[in-house]
Each structure stands twice: as C-alpha cells, then as structure tokens.
C-alpha cells in the first residue's frame, strides 16, 4: 500500500493518468492513425511547453506571470529588430532577444518585490504594455526575418528535424531535464521552493526572498522569450497577435501538471505532460471530426476536472488528524 500512497501523493499523478487515458483514447478511436500525427503534436508541445516549464518554475516560488504570451511576441520582434536595424547576425540577435526577455522578467520582479505590487497586477500590466508594443511595432500586421538571414544555419537548425522529431522538441526535452535538476537538486532550486513555501521563514534562514523571486521571474520570461525566438525561426514571422492567450494555456498546463498557486512545491515535467495532453486534444479532436470550437471549452472543463481530482486525491492521502 505504501507504494500507492507515495504514488498518489505525487503532484504529477493525475496528469500521468490523464496522459495515458488521452493516448489510449485517441489511438483506439482512430485505429492507430492518431499515432502518426505525434510529430506535429510534439511540435506544438515544444512551443507551449517551453513557456509552461518557465511558468511552473515561477509558480514554485509562489508568484505567477500573466505576461508570457506578450513576452513571447516581443522576444521575436526584438530578434528581428536586432537582425534588421542593428544588422547583427542570427546568433547575436538570438542572444539579444533572450537578454531582452530576461530584462522584462527583471523589471517585473523588481516591481513585485520592491514596490509590493502583487505579481498578478504587475504581469497583467506587462501583458498590456508588451502587447501594445507588439501591435505598434508591427502596425497590426507582421514582421519577418530579413531575407539574407533566412538561410542561416541557426534558423535552419530550428526548422530541422532529428529522427523525425522537431529540433525544438528536443530543446524542450533538454530544457525540462535541466530545469527539473535545477529545481530539485541545486541550491537555487531549494531557495525557490523555500521562498515559495514560506517567504518569512526563508528570510529567517538567510535566504533573500527578493533576489530569489527576481531570478525566478527572469527564468520564466527567458523561457517565454526562447519559445518566441524558436517559433520565429520556424515560421519566419511574428504577427501582432502571436502568443495571445498563451499565458492562459501555459498556466492551465502548469496546474494540470501539478503546480499550485500556493508555491513551495512544483513539478517541471508534469506541466510538459500537461501541455502534451492539451495539444493532443487539439489535434485529436480534429481527427475525430469534432468542431475545433470544442477545444477551448474542453481546456476549461479539463482544468477544473484536474483541480477537483487532485484536491480529492490529496485529501484522501492526507493523514486524518
């Protein structure tokens, strides 16, 4: 029984069960045809997954970032700006855009920590500001990578596939492993969890909640930016509406994957499975001939369903006091 106890107490339990159910359901109902769409499911998973793991990391520190969808768009625009106006190469432009996204995280973190503005409000404000910047700089249309850079090895690498898997998906896998190790095995990760669990207790033990939270914000925004840049390389353009509503999908995936808003505990690979469940639904429903308008309603129903299930499970595994 103790194995089941332990398994049930893990935050990822419900998402693992959910993943198995989704895979079984679509494989059986489409007679195996669904399995051949897996590469494109992985491609979508990579895009949202990179954002979700950053979000999960930040949620472990007890904060939330609503601006990731806008950061996603702005990072792509900064990369184009660096190539087009600054005439940098692709690799420097990549780094400039990544630095710009971390800077966004830094500013939001500073406002949250030093000006005592709740992270919900700061990042809600940033969502508006960054989206407005994206609209203004694209004039409401789109911007593309300058022609001379479109055949750059780095751009081609982001587009390419290895063993039938998009390279961006491999990036997601590597990033997941690294971030999971950082959260569970390094000092920084312990600090993040400690600050998320009880900031004043962490402070009493000599951990600076301010510095830790600001770093967590920077990690989250950097991953949103990374996803934006990779998608730019894949698709060649950024639209004024790129990444709209991504914050909601990323948060939904993180919650389905076992993160809580309370902080202090968290999972990095759970949210990746959460994204996988969501993107399988998107493609699988279309294959079954269901209208795509079902998808958005289902995300909502799933999110609430997972919340209820995990609450019931955690209530049943808790020792009754």
């Amino acid at each position, binding site marked *: 029984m103790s194995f089941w106890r332990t398994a049930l107490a893990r935050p990822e339990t419900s998402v693992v069960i959910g993943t198995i159910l989704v895979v079984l359901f679509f494989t059986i109902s489409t007679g195996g045809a669904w399995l051949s769409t897996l590469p494109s499911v992985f491609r979508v998973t990579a895009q949202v997954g990179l954002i979700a793991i950053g979000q999960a990391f930040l949620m472990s520190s007890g904060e939330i970032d609503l601006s990731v969808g806008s950061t996603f768009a702005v990072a792509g625009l900064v990369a184009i700006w660096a190539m087009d106006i600054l005439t940098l190469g692709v690799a420097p432009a990549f780094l400039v855009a990544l630095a710009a996204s971390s800077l966004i995280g830094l500013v939001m973190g500073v406002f949250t920590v030093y000006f005592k503005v*709740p992270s919900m409000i700061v990042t809600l404000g*940033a969502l508006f500001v960054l989206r407005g*910047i994206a609209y203004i700089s694209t004039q409401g249309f789109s911007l593309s990578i300058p022609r001379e850079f479109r055949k750059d090895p780095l751009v081609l690498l982001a587009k390419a596939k290895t063993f039938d898997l998009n390279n961006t998906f491999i990036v997601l896998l590597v990033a997941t492993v690294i971030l999971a190790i950082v959260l569970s095995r390094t000092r920084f990760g312990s600090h993040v969890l400690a600050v998320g669990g009880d900031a004043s207790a962490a402070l009493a033990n000599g951990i600076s909640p301010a510095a830790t939270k600001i770093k967590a914000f920077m990690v989250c925004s950097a991953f949103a930016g990374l996803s934006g840049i990779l998608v730019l390389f894949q698709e060649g353009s950024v639209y004024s509406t790129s990444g709209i509503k991504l914050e909601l999908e990323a948060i939904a995936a993180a919650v389905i994957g076992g993160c809580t808003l309370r902080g202090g505990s968290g999972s990095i690979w759970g949210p990746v499975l959460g994204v996988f469940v969501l993107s399988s639904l998107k493609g699988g429903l279309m294959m079954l001939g269901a209208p795509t308008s079902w998808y958005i*309603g289902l995300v909502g129903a799933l999110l609430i369903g997972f*919340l*209820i299930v995990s609450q019931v499970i955690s209530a049943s595994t808790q020792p009754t006091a």
Partner: protein
Amino acid sequence: MSRIFLIRNEAIAIASICILSGFFALTIGASWFNNIPSLLRDVSWLGIVVIGQALVIMSGEFDLSVGSVYAFVSMVFVLLLNEAIPPGLSLLLSLGLAAAIGYLTGLLTWRLKLPSLLVTLGFLFFYRGMVEWVTDGFPVTIDDEIRSSVFITLLGGKTLGLHNSIMICALLVAVFTVMLSKFRFGNHLYAVGGDTDVALATGVPAGAIKTWVFVICSGLAGFAGIITAASLSSVSTTTATAMELESIAAVVIGGCLLLGGSGTVWGALLGVVTLLLLKHGLIILGVNIFAYQVCLGVVLVGLVALKGVVSELELYR
C-alpha cells in the same frame, strides 16, 4: 488635507479623472464634450460588471470568467428571444443561468477549497468555448420584430439622449454602496475578505458570503451582457474577450486592496471612468488605439506601485 488625500484609497482615481478630463477637454475641445454620452454608456456597461468584480475582490477572491459569462449569458438571452419566448421571461431565465454559474463557481471555491483564480480561469475557457460551439463562430442577432418590444427598449434604449443603462448602473452602484456600508452583508463581506479564519471564528458564515458574492458577480456580468445585447441587438464570439483584465484593472485603480477586506463600489466605478476616459480620449486624439493598451498597463502598475510607496512613507512618519 494631504493626509486625507493619502488615506482615502479612491483619491488616486479621483485625481486621475480630474487630470485626464481637464487635459482632454483642453486639447480636444468640443468633440470631447459631444462624446460624453457615449463615454457614459460604455462606463455603465463595464461598470455593472465591475461592481461584481469589486465585491469578489473585496471578499478575497478573483473572478476571471466575467467576460466569458457576459458573452455566454447575453448569447443565451438572444437565442431565447429568437425562440419567441417573451422578453421578460427570457431575461429571468438568463439571469437565473448567470446566478447558477456563479453558484457553481462559489461551490467549487468554497466547498472544495480550490483557488478561485484557477477555477474561474477554467470557466473563462469553458463558457467562451460554449459560445463558440453554439454559435459556430458567427454572431447571433435579435430578430427585427422583437427589437422594438417594450422590454428591449427599456433595457437598451435612451431617455433624454442618455442610455437607460447609465441610470441602471447608477442605481446598482447606490444599492451596493448602501448594502456594503449599512447592512450586515457588507460587514460580513469585509470581515471574510480581511481574514476568513477570524470571520469564521466569530460566527460569520464565510461560505455563504463567498458563494453569494460569486452569484452576484456572475449575475451582474450576465445582466450587463443582456443590456449590451438589448442595445446593440447582437452578440459575437469575441464579445468582451479582455473584460476580466479590464475589470480587475478598474477595481485596483478604484482603490480596492487585492488581498481583500477593503475598498468601495463607487471607487471601483471611478476606476472604470479613469480607464474609459483614457481610452476614448486617445481614440478621439487619433492616437494608435494600441497605445491605449500600453497606457493601461503603465497606469495600472504605476498606481499600485505608487500606493505601495505612499504607504511605506506613512509608516516612517
């Protein structure tokens, strides 16, 4: 004087309204004054939603689903009307639906102790998905012959050049302001928002209060949607998509504490006025409408940060 300015949370909204309207009146002139009736109309539509959002935030919770509930309920209202159900009954049925939606949210947040932020995030998706599913992505429109019925003109029409919704909104703000300051419900609401455990320990029915607040919030969001539908005669799938963000922004600018336990309904309404003054002014000035989003974000974070700094200064005095 300066002390009063610092103490009252609504001071920021009042000051912003004075500065903004002065600025726009001087720079734009006559066409700004001509725009005031439609500004008031927009204020009343968003304002009715914001009353509910303010109550929810005062009770220490969040409702991200208001925009989707607004669209969903108004869609149901239009569809009921087109099924030749009398307008009065349609109104009652759709308001009942809105209240049931709020009750469900309250039940999940209070009974199962789920965070309202996530529950309502789920419902944001769910009801928006329902709208898209039912309408297949096309707008639904009230049939021509029903548009002139008494009920519809009462909800969506004009009196003396002003939309009736302005009166309705003013009435609702008055009712809820009195309810919060003079009645037991208001007392309990602030107590629950301030510290739920303490409220429970002193015998305040915290669960009932929170559930009621969600019922009121969804009910008002649905009601605002119905009024808008009666006035515009149609609902589209993208109706009120960013309303959850705008309503929270308005409540915060209007001086409510995000942690709950403090704030006023009329302050939240002033928050709406601030937001829409900015929006309409920028549109008339011909500024890129997306600049409004940038301003909205800066104003939101700036005002809350300012409040944080001011209260720190108070402490050091």
